[in-house]
């Protein structure tokens, strides 16, 4: 599907700001190089080099406080929203450094969407308005709003449950439905990458499975990076895994990264083995 948006493709060899037209629904690749993060002068994440492959699901796993979420938020410039947060290194979306000169955070976030731990639909907007919120921010006009709402909600696996009440408020849905609404809202702007920060940790098992199914279904259209504490979930949904760990009073680091089967089946690092087998600490 080709639509025109005020955004642009960038080839790996031609770094340029995202302007002009581009083919949408194209998953992107993220290369993080030497990413470090500080909060109030304290180093919390050290030299992370990680590639998140196009059209694949990459899971970031590790114990609490090891910098997974911080790393995730660096990938779409949400880290800088936190007061006192600093970072170093580069994050390239299809070869273009999102922290490079001339790159605007709001533009980057339209290409790299995010779903949060706690469902956060706009409670006083209707379901349909929630889905369209991102497009309104970018002032782009979809050809047919109803089609887009249906498409996004279908992809997020929510359409059948809400198709007769699109005018109801987003805040009136159940937690699992709200989270899928948030996914639909993120997908509606057709991002190239979707970041998910423990999207199921506030949900019941049924909703969790439903969202995992959604992740698998959208993966060929959008690259997914998911932070999860749930080992089974990482195993179920991801193609690649990165194991983060922070030793006591040390910043978080990537201990091991690779294909999910490898990380869970035959990890090279003993700490990875211990963690994925639940023998940690």
């Amino acid at each position: 599907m080709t639509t025109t948006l005020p955004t642009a493709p960038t080839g790996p060899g031609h770094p340029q700001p995202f302007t002009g037209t581009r083919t949408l629904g194209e998953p992107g690749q993220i290369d993080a190089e030497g990413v470090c993060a500080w909060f109030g002068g304290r180093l919390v994440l050290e030299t992370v080099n990680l590639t998140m492959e196009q059209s694949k699901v990459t899971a970031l796993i590790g114990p609490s406080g090891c910098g997974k979420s911080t790393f995730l938020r660096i990938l779409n410039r949400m880290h800088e929203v936190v007061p006192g947060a600093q970072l170093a290194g580069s994050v390239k979306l299809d070869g273009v450094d999102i922290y490079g000169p001339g790159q605007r955070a709001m533009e980057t976030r339209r290409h790299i969407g995010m779903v949060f731990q706690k469902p956060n639909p706009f409670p006083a907007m209707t379901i349909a308005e929630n889905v369209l919120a991102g497009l309104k921010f970018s002032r782009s006009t979809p050809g047919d709003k109803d089609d887009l709402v249906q498409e996004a909600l279908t992809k997020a696996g929510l359409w059948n449950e809400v198709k007769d009440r699109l005018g109801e408020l987003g805040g009136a849905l159940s937690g699992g439905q709200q989270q899928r609404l948030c996914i639909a809202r993120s997908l509606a702007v057709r991002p190239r990458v979707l970041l998910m920060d423990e999207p199921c940790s506030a949900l019941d098992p049924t909703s969790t499975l439903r969202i995992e199914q959604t992740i698998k279904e959208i993966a060929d259209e959008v690259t997914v990076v998911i932070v999860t504490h749930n080992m089974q979930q990482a195993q179920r949904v991801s193609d690649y895994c990165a194991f983060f760990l922070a030793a006591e009073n040390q910043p978080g680091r990537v201990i091991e990264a690779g294909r999910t089967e490898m990380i869970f089946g035959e990890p090279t690092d003993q700490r990875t083995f211990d963690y994925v087998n639940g023998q940690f600490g």
Partner: protein
Amino acid sequence: MAIDLDLAPRRPQAPAPTPITVTRDYSTPDKVFRWGVQASGLGVFLLLVAIGSFLAWSGWPAFKVAGWGFFTHSGPVLVGSHANFGVLASLTGTVEVAFVAMVFGAPVAICTALFLSEYAPLRSRRSLIAMIDLAAAIPSIIFGLWAFFELQPNVVGLSTWMSRHLAFIPFFKVTSPPLNASIFIAGLVVGIMIVPIVASICREVFSLAPAGEREAALALGASRWQMIRTVVLPFGRGGMIGAVMLGLGRALEETIAVTIILAGSYKVTGQILQHGGSTISQLIAINFNQSGGALGVHDLLLCGFVLFLLTLVINLAASAIVNRSRSGAGVDL
């Protein structure tokens, strides 16, 4: 395999369930505390009623003499051998001063609050907030003196400009200069005075806007202003209206600063730029010592009752307007 579910009630003859009465047995300290808070709550209400009825009761003799003319006349009016009093000029003056104050004060206060909660750098934010709160504590007589000696001479130029270029708006027409001691300047001072308190409340409300929804907007590619419009302002709408109404109440009753600035003439005027005008509180303040002359104490108390009713109505209206609002409400991007 079929499971035989016994869905029939076990004892069909059992009586229909009735709710039980839950006894609330409070402990003694709890009872004492309960009584205490109840007493102060009721006390405030009673005080309000007492003040209202005192003013109505004491103003009644003046109303008996003046009749409804009290509301249609301005200043002392000679009726036969007796000087009746009318509140009209002061009432309109009060509303005009408050209106000017809100037009200038409310937007500045809301912008100040947005700056403090959304834009101010973290390092200077605390000290800026402390300064705003301190400004709220400046006595009004200080504002009055400052306005008389510093603000007024500088604002007269603006008044002159407005009277020349905006005279097609009836409010800004000037027929009898000078342009000092005007309702406009008094309103400006009061507007400045209400900024700290309104800004302080609005900032508090804005800072309570849910972080998750703020991040949701930003992560969807919203600019900071779009995020504010989608999340912060709709969430804070109720609080904002409340704060502005509180400011309005303050603007209606401001006495000393207005007394210092305003010329005090008993003439209904819509021409806010020129010398003259009065407000109810100013009228009471300047006449209280000499009451017994043309203006009896009952006249003043009746004026007080009018002001009391005015502020009461404003506050009731405010609470009717204020409805809890959440982010995304009424947003048309």
